[in-house]
């Protein structure tokens, strides 16, 4: 918990946003604590980017308010923007400038000058493996390098809160690993990290708390462990001695996959029991030689929460 008297990193209250007839955000309430690694998940069109754009001051809400470290993103936009760094989803760059120029200009927008900030910019270049590209024009960089420059630009003013909007979309495995190592380091240094991603295993391994959005609303907001406990189903994998030609009727609705003598059952927590499945197989003459169970992961929870009302 954020201690009493200390402002949350992000506070969102009653946020609504309309784009014409589309009600993109339908009353979002959210608090992200200082120092938290927070995941914001949801299918395309759920409203994640709209919410981020409002926090960043790139879009204005129709109702409600948003604060970064206690600063209103509209009323106290200067302080709010100084406290926030955003890595945008799209790879965008200014083709007129070199990497070092881009970083110096971005720092200058925040009124930062002098050797201290220059050293920090060089450190960012080194950490993000861009030191040898400092004098290269942005146009000449690969997609992955441009993505790293975007991260450096977002961090050039050492913001307390860093929002990464799908930073690993289209990024190769090696770069993704180095990027997460860097983000983990930022988190360890005390930065609040907000992450949106479609790679749910990333959110599962990194985030302390996760909000799941759907249709402009937050449908779930909890710790990762609590969300995983919400999973309604678990998987039972069974190997039989002989191939199963005909399944007992009681198991037909539960089987998810079957290849000769290997069966995969999707079981409802609380109502379906593993001994009953095993007993039904034994009663129909099959000998079980091996079995494993798999607990639900974040992807299962995500799908359950986002598809429940469809």
């Amino acid at each position, binding site marked *: 918990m954020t201690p009493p008297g200390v402002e949350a990193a992000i506070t969102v209250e009653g946020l609504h946003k309309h784009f014409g007839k589309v009600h993109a955000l339908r009353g979002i309430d959210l608090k992200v604590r200082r120092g938290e690694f927070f995941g914001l998940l949801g299918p395309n069109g759920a409203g994640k980017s709209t919410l981020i754009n409002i926090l960043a001051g790139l879009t204005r809400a129709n109702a409600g308010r948003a604060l970064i470290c206690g600063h209103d993103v509209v009323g106290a936009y200067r302080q709010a923007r100084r406290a926030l760094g955003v890595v945008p989803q799209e790879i965008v760059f200014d083709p007129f400038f070199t990497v070092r120029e881009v970083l110096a200009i971005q720092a200058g927008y*925040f009124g930062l000058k002098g050797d201290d900030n220059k050293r920090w910019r060089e450190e960012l270049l080194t950490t993000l493996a861009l030191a040898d590209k400092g004098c290269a024009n942005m146009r000449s960089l690969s997609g992955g390098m441009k993505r790293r420059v975007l991260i450096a630009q977002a961090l050039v003013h050492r913001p307390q809160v860093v929002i990464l909007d799908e930073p690993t979309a289209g990024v190769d495995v090696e770069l993704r690993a180095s990027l997460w190592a860097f983000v983990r380091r930022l988190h360890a240094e005390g930065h609040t990290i907000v992450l949106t991603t479609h790679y749910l295993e990333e959110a599962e391994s990194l985030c302390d708390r996760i909000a799941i959005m759907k249709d402009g609303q937050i449908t779930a907001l909890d710790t990762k462990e609590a969300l995983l406990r919400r999973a309604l189903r678990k998987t039972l994998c069974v190997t039989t001695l002989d191939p199963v030609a005909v399944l007992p009727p009681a198991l037909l609705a539960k089987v998810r996959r079957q290849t000769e003598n290997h069966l995969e059952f999707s079981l409802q927590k609380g109502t379906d029991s593993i001994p009953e499945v095993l007993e039904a197989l034994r009663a129909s003459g099959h000998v079980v030689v091996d079995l494993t169970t798999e607990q639900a992961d974040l992807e299962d929870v995500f799908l359950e929460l986002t598809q429940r009302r469809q």
Partner: protein
Amino acid sequence: MTGFSTLFYKEILRFYKVAFQTILAPVVTALLYLLVFASTFKGRTGALPGVPYVAFLVPGLMMMSMIQNAFANSSSSLIQSKIAGNLIFILLSPLSTLEFFLAFVGAAVVRAMCVAVGVYVAAILFVSVPVHHPFFLVAFGLLGSAALGALGVIAGVWAERFDQLAGFQNFVVVPLSFLSGVFYSLRALPPVWRALSKVNPLLYMIDGFRYGFFGTSDVPPLVSLGVVAGFLVAVSLLALALVGRGYRLRN
């Protein structure tokens, strides 16, 4: 550097890096106009008493170049940044509406001045153009290019596609700059056209700027200065309102 000075510097650096296109090309264009008109109307007396026609042309061509380049600088920078998406880096910064506006307009004025100096230096190789009133020269140069820089901000904010901006430039700025007395004196026009010309604010920029060189003009210079200053205030207020609201920027 402050946020404002950084954006101002960045906008200057942006046109400086392509100076061949942004400075040299307009100077050459103005020089071509001058050479063609000079050879066509060689020996002809000017539209102003005692001023040779070729000399008469020089301030008009300078101001026309300033008008067009000031507009082009702010408008093209904004539309390119909007379409490429890199405007986000400015919008994410703590820059105020006024800082944003002044930086774009300031850089537009600097480019306009560079072009004007280039045209003047090239022109005096062919014709003598003495300066009578430096104050008016500088005042009209600054206010005129600032007004068109502000108009460029409006166009750049409003336009969502390159063709919309090209339409604004080709159907508003270029006609108004050509029909503002660059090539003729107001007194040479029929009464109807003279009356119509007087609603064109660019006419007062060129007429006043010309006064700075020759000490004579169609409209009293202080009247022209008032009109140009009024136009600058009007377009600046509109531009500030649009940027402040985030019109087509923060949506």
